[in-house]
């Protein structure tokens, strides 16, 4: 039993459909990660007594535990408390929350790169704190953050494969389904690997282009 091209070709439409779901998860998950991560980073930086510490712990805890176990937790435990989402939605939320801990660190590094003089100047002009964030600090911080966030987007695209374990029908979910139906894994796994490789190589190149662009306009 070795490579069967006819069989492999017949799988491509189904696997492309899986890839589509993978891309959807990545895009939606990244949106959550970008928003939640920004919120976490701003709260941590604002040094609000208990809250900033809690958010710091949140970042460390989420980064210190496996995505798979987090996914199981959301998928098996939350329904016991009457919270039920579809596997797809659960997956998007879990991976979004997971990556929010990483994006929070990226934003933090970006904010730390903004010179202290910028904050002091804003204070001297008695700009309100929210406006200092929105108009002064974040625009400068984001320029350094965007390429790193792009790399995390590519990483998330590959990591989303873990979600097949909570029966999300993304690319690996289809591979698993084909494999257990036909007892042939070689073709679906190989095609899936090639699809992951193509998308992530192209995406990494785009991120690199973006990085150069942002760096040049400094």
């Amino acid at each position, binding site marked *: 039993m070795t490579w069967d091209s006819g069989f492999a070709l017949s799988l491509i439409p189904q696997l492309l459909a899986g890839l589509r779901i993978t891309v959807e998860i990545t895009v939606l998950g990244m949106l959550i990660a970008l928003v939640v991560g920004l919120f976490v980073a701003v709260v941590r930086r604002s040094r609000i007594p208990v809250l900033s510490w809690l958010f710091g712990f949140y970042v460390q805890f989420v980064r210190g*535990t496996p995505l*798979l176990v987090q996914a199981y937790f959301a998928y098996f435990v939350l329904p016991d408390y009457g919270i039920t989402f579809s596997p797809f939605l659960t997956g998007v939320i879990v991976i979004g929350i997971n990556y929010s801990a990483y994006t929070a660190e990226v934003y933090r590094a970006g904010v730390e790169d903004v010179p202290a003089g910028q904050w002091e100047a804003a204070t001297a002009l008695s700009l309100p704190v929210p406006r200092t964030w929105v108009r002064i600090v974040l625009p400068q911080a984001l320029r350094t953050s965007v390429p790193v966030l792009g790399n995390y987007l590519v990483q998330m695209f*590959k990591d989303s494969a873990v979600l097949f374990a909570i029966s999300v029908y993304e690319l690996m979910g289809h591979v698993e389904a084909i494999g257990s139906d036909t007892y042939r894994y070689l073709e679906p796994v*190989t095609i899936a*690997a090639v699809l992951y490789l193509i998308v992530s190589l192209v995406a990494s190149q785009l991120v690199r282009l973006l990085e150069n662009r942002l760096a040049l306009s400094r």
Partner: protein
Amino acid sequence: MSPDFWTFTAHLLWRGLQVTILVTVLGTVLALVTAFVAGLGRLSDHGPVRWIALAFIEVFRGTSLVAQLFFFFYALPAFGVRLAPMFAGVLAIGLNEGSYAAEIVRSAIGSRGVGQNEACVSLHMGKALRMRRVLIPQSIPAMLPPFGNVTVDLLKNSSLVSLVTVGDMTFQAQIVRNQFGNTTVVFAILLVIYFILSQLIALLSRWLERRFALDRDRRSAPEPRIRYAEATGGSR
């Protein structure tokens, strides 16, 4: 929750913990070897060696770890290669994380000052000796913090071996869930254990960073400078 539940859970999770640690340790060893082989391969003078190393790194970084795990466990038997689940798991995780670590090795060695390399050349050191005695030792401090991150990632990704029937902690937690349905407690304990393990790795990594910090070298630095002054007759 009956005492039965607790003995059962404790017993299974303890067994699973040992497997998780084993997979993480073996995976780390394989990742380190892979990192240096592929990372130095990327810096080779021979074109084909560089291309093979690059292709290896891009393939393992560019495809999902789950896909690699499936390939080693489910697809290789098609070629008559049947790996034990544990072996397939360690192989996939070690090579995957190793390909990330290879880029760390490459960039750490690549970012040494050109002067170091030139000094070695003028002392007539061969490439291998240069690497072994000068460039690699100097690069270790720069490699340690990212290596620490890779090891934490490796621990977390070791949970994926449960998907190919290896009895690690995550796998055992699933068994407890199937037996008792006490999902909340089991998965909460599981998260806490993983968190503690990753904090331990982070601590160990920070200790190694301090141990190999460049500051330690700076203390012995004045000596050669004095010798230099003597050698040039104190003209500087």
